[in-house]
Each structure stands twice: as structure tokens, then as C-alpha cells.
């Protein structure tokens, strides 16, 4: 009997069990990375600014995320009396949920054989995986706008408005930069995209994998820049520009609700890194098609790629100042969008010529 894909129809009990296990593991790992990304960021930025970062809580401040979490947990939860209560409560969840839910389509390893079944190392393999990611990235902005508007505060509202303008402008360029990938892969399923990237580079170089970053370097750069803008990271953190807007959309938030915004920021960073790694850097595949490297389990490679990208984002934050609002808009509409469009046109031409 040939093994078949484990699904709800052929073995409901096992399917639900495995699914719950996968959900727990992925959620747990993501939350762990979120917690320690804050520590890493403070350490990395500290050292880059010739400081030390947290040093007092545990060895080299390793318990800092736990201390921060406990502190925020015991803080007074303030709801401004003039705020709109329900959206005010809803907004932090509306930011965190789209951020976390996107991880569901990221494949983190090859298929496993379990008895007579094939178990994919991915929570769900949607055939419209990338569309799903883009849709939830678009939903994320609702949380920010809602937080800004429901707070009934000038700074929060300005932060929310800025966020919506910024995210809408940059989502276009981000989406267009990914389109070039689809033209090459001819599929929207992330599982398939990773599988294609494991082939030989351009069908000739046998030990280098066919990562799309080699064929689409411009799209990769565009995606990183627009991705940074979409998750509101420095140098594009206009919605929470401290020097102008106090803390932007989360000015009025305190306690665990503020912690949710904080977690969402880092979860978004993980998600963008994971998407960039999956679409351009070969997902869970090894960087060279050599037996020793391909022996290492896929999730190790994926995590390494995610960490490398996250380190790059922290490095950028330590280096560059925030761009001005008009510069941000000009760059989004006049530089990145035309570049992404041109990239799509050129890719299309090449694809047609090669056929």
C-alpha cells in the first residue's frame, strides 16, 4: 500500500492529534522566539551603541523577558474614560492574531512518514498560501487603526492614520515584488515554492540550490524594505515615532494590552523573516546541496535563516534614523512601486523568451 497524505477523512483521530501537536509546537516556538527576540534586540542594539544592554536579571540579563512580562502583567490596566471601550479592547487582539496566524502556512521541513501516512511539516498547505499571507498582512493594519481611533487621543489617532497610509502604500510594492516569484514558480503554495528551490541552480549548477534570491535579487531587496515598512520597524516606524507621537497608536495602552502590541511587533518580525526565508532563501532547504548539510533537519535551516534576517533587522534599527513621513511616502510610491512593476515586466519578458 502506498503511503497517503494524512487527512481528516482517512484517520480523523491521528490527524487531529498531530495537528494539535504541530499547532502547539509552532505556537510555542514562535512565542519563545518573540520573548527572546526582545532580549536579543536589546543586547544587539546595546552593543552596537557601545553599551551592554540588560545585565542584571540573570546571567547577562537572560531573564529580562520574563521580568518584563511579569512587570507588565502586574501593571494597572487603564482604559481611558473617553475611549471607545469595545474597539479599545479588541485592537490588541486584532494586531496579534493576524501576526501569529500567518505562521500556519510556513513549511518547516520535508514530509514525514508515519506508518502508512505522509505528514507534512507544515500546519496547513494552502494552495493559495501566499495570498493568505498577504491577506492577513493587510488585516494587521485594522488593529493599528482601531487602536489609534478607539483611544480617542490625538497622538494615537495620528499614529493610526500614519500606519494605515504607510501599510497600504507599501503593501502594493510588497505584493508586486512577490508576483515575480509566482511567475517563476507558477504556484502559490509555499510547500511547492520550497520544493522548487531545492532543485539545481538554473538547472546547471548541481550543488547550489535554485533559491529565488539568485534569480530575483531585486525582488528580495524590495520585499525586505517593504516588509520592514509593513511591520513598522525602524527606519520606517512612523506610526510609533516617539519623538513626534509619544508612542503612536499604543500611547493609551498599558499592562498586558501594551504587551500584546509589543508581542505583535516581534511576531510580525518573525513572520516577515519566515516569509522572506521561504520565498527567497529556500525555506527549510540547506544552503548547499551537499549530503552533510542536507542531513541537518529542515527546521534548523529555517530557524537559522529567520534568525539571520531578524539580526539584520536589529542591525538596521541600530544604524539608521527614522525617515521623514514625506520621504517615506515618496520612496514607497516613486521608487519602490515602479521598481517592483519593472521587475515584474522584466521577469515576464524573460519567462516568455525562455519558453
Amino acid at each position, binding site marked *: 500500500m502506498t503511503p497517503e497524505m494524512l487527512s481528516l477523512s482517512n484517520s480523523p483521530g491521528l490527524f487531529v492529534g498531530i495537528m494539535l501537536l504541530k499547532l502547539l509546537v509552532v505556537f510555542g516556538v514562535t512565542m519563545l522566539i518573540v520573548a527572546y527576540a526582545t532580549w536579543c534586540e536589546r543586547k544587539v542594539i546595546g552593543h552596537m551603541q557601545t553599551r*551592554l544592554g540588560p545585565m542584571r536579571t540573570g546571567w547577562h540579563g537572560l531573564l529580562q523577558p520574563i521580568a518584563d512580562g511579569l512587570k507588565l502583567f502586574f501593571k494597572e490596566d487603564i482604559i481611558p474614560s473617553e475611549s471607545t471601550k469595545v474597539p479599545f479592547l479588541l485592537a490588541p487582539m486584532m494586531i496579534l492574531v493576524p501576526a501569529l496566524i500567518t505562521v500556519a502556512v510556513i513549511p518547516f521541513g520535508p514530509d514525514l512518514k508515519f506508518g502508512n501516512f505522509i505528514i507534512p511539516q507544515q500546519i496547513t498547505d494552502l494552495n493559495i498560501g501566499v495570498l493568505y499571507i498577504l491577506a492577513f498582512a493587510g488585516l494587521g493594519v485594522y488593529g493599528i487603526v482601531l487602536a489609534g481611533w478607539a483611544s480617542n487621543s490625538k497622538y494615537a489617532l495620528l499614529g493610526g492614520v500614519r500606519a494605515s497610509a504607510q501599510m497600504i502604500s507599501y503593501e502594493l510594492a510588497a505584493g508586486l515584488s512577490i508576483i515575480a516569484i509566482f511567475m517563476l514558480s507558477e504556484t502559490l503554495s509555499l510547500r511547492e515554492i520550497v520544493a522548487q528551490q531545492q532543485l539545481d541552480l538554473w538547472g546547471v549548477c548541481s550543488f547550489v540550490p535554485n533559491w529565488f534570491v539568485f534569480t530575483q535579487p531585486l525582488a528580495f531587496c524590495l520585499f525586505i524594505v517593504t516588509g520592514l515598512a509593513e511591520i513598522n520597524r525602524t527606519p520606517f516606524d512612523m506610526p510609533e515615532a516617539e519623538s513626534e507621537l509619544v508612542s503612536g497608536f499604543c500611547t493609551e495602552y498599558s499592562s498586558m494590552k501594551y504587551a500584546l502590541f509589543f508581542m505583535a511587533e516581534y511576531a510580525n518580525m518573525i513572520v516577515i523573516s519566515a516569509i522572506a526565508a521561504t520565498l527567497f532563501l529556500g525555506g527549510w532547504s540547506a544552503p548547499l546541496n551537499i549530503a552533510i548539510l542536507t542531513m541537518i533537519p529542515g527546521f534548523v535551516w529555517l530557524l537559522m535563516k529567520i534568525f539571520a534576517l531578524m539580526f539584520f533587522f536589529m542591525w538596521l534599527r541600530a544604524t539608521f534614523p527614522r525617515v521623514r513621513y514625506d520621504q517615506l511616502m515618496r520612496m514607497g510610491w516613486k521608487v519602490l512601486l515602479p521598481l517592483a512593476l519593472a521587475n515584474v515586466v522584466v521577469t515576464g519578458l524573460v519567462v516568455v523568451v525562455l519558453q
Partner: protein
Amino acid sequence: MFKEFAKGLSITFKHLLPGHSTTVQYPTVKLKPSDRFRGLHRLVPSQDREKCVACYLCPTVCPAKCITVESAENEKGEKYPKVYTIDLLRCIFCGYCVEACPVEAIEMTGVYEMANYKREDFQFTKQRLLK
């Protein structure tokens, strides 16, 4: 433009390498203040008593008016400060008292950890200043 980006990134990366931190882990590691540091005052003792002759020059010159001196005469007929109190909550550590003193009876030490819990603890009396 990209050259400048790369330059900035290389600078921050260089700082990340070990040995570039300038932070001193303060409570466990302490820097030695310079010899000219103006910290807590000290009344200089001579053989059997303080050098101070209670000439009132330091409370006169003190811009914060934080020094209280009451003079008296001892059995040898020498003037000495019966009371010499510095209110550190008012003191601005300008060092004028040290400059004004004709007999070099007051000096400033490198002690800068002077936090305390009660207002009264900041009244440095003659006994405390002589230590």
C-alpha cells in the same frame, strides 16, 4: 547613497564586536574619581583637634548658605568651632569653602555616594565631617 548605508552598517557592526563597550557595571565596578573631584567635605584634623579656627570665611563665601559655624574658645584660648554643620541638601559642591579657608582646614574628598533615607541624615556635623 548605498555606500553610506554600507558605511553606517559597518560602523555599528564594528561596535558589536567584543571589547567596544564603554559601560562600567557601576555598583560592582567603580571608577576612581579624579583628585580634583568635589565630593563630600572633610574637616582636616591636626594633632588633638580640628585645624579649623572658626574664622567664618566659609559660611560667608558659601553661595548656598549651607554651612553653620559657631565659634568658641578652648582652655588654651584658641578659637575653635563648637558647631560646624554642612547641610548637604543645600550644598552645591562648588568648593568655595575650600578656596576661602585660610588654614586649609576643609577639603573635598572623592566620596559621591551620599544617598540617604532621612533629611536629618544629610546634616553633616563636626564629628561626621572629621572622619
